[in-house]
C-alpha cells in the first residue's frame, strides 16, 4: 500500500509508541466483532451440551430429571442467565450485520446501530435476568 493510501485510513496521528488508531481498530466496529465471536463460541459449546442433555429424555424420565436438576442449581442459574445475555447480543448484533450487508445505508449507520444493539441488549437483560434468577433462587420453595 502506498503512503498516501495508508494515510487515508488513519484518523489520528500521535507521537506515542502505541499503534495509530484507524477507522476500525479500538472502535465500535472492532468491539462488536470481538463480542460476536466470544458470544458465538460460548453459545456453540452450550448447544453441544444442550443436545446431549435433552437426549436424556429418550433414556428415561429419571435420567432427564436428574440432568435437569443440575440446571436448577443457583450457580448453573447464573450461567444460564449469562448464556441468554450472550444469545441476545449475538441475535441483535447479527441483525446489525445483516443490515450493514443488505441495507443501502447500513454501513453509514453501523455505529448508531451498534448503540441500538447495546440499548436492546440492556433492555432484554433487564427483562429476562430478574425473572430467571427469581425462578432459580426460589427452586424447591
Amino acid at each position, binding site marked *: 500500500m502506498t503512503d498516501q493510501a495508508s494515510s487515508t485510513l488513519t484518523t489520528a496521528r500521535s507521537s506515542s509508541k502505541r499503534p495509530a488508531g484507524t477507522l476500525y481498530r479500538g472502535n465500535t466496529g472492532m468491539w462488536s466483532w470481538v463480542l460476536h465471536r466470544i458470544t458465538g*463460541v460460548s453459545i456453540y459449546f452450550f*448447544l453441544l451440551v444442550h443436545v446431549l442433555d435433552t437426549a436424556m429424555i*429418550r433414556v428415561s424420565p429419571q435420567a432427564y430429571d436428574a440432568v435437569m436438576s443440575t440446571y436448577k442449581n443457583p450457580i448453573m442459574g447464573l450461567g444460564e442467565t449469562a448464556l441468554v445475555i450472550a444469545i441476545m447480543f449475538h441475535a441483535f448484533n447479527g441483525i446489525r450485520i445483516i443490515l450493514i450487508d443488505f441495507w443501502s445505508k447500513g454501513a453509514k449507520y453501523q455505529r448508531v446501530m451498534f448503540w441500538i444493539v447495546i440499548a436492546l441488549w440492556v433492555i432484554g437483560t433487564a427483562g*429476562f435476568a430478574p425473572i430467571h434468577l427469581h425462578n432459580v433462587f426460589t427452586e424447591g420453595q
Partner: protein
Amino acid sequence: MSTIIEAPRTPRVRSSKGRINWEKWGWLYMRLSGVLLLILIFGHLFVNLVLGQGIKEIDFAFVAGKYATPFWQWWDVIMLWLAMIHGSNGMRTIVNDYAGNRTVRRVLLGGIAVAAVVLIVLGTLVVFTFDPCSTLIPADQALAFCPVP
C-alpha cells in the same frame, strides 16, 4: 504460503466458472439461518424460561408434553439443524482464522464436522422416536393423556 490481499473493491476474477461458490452460499446461510434462529430461539426461551414458573417447571413431563405435538417436534428439529450448521460454520471460520498449522486446522475442522453430524442425527432421532407413553415409563410417572395399560 503467500496470500495476495487485493485492494478494496477489486472486481472478482471468475476463475472457477461453473463451480459452486461455497463460501458465498455459506455467507448467505449465516444471514438467513440467523434471522430464523432469532425467532426460533427467542420463542424457545420465552416458552421454556419466561412463561409460568420458567425453569422450575421443566422436567420429563414438560418436555414429553411438548414432544407429543408435531408443532414442537418440528420447532425443535428445525432449530437443531439450523443452529448446529450455523454454529459449526462459525467455528470453521474461527479455526480458519487462528489455526496456522495445517494439521491442527484439519483436526479441528474434522472434529467440528463430526460433532455436527453426530448431534444432528442424535437430536433428530431423539425427537422423532420419542414415545411420551412408552411402557418403559413407570405407571406412577405416566402422563395424564396416556392410555392406562
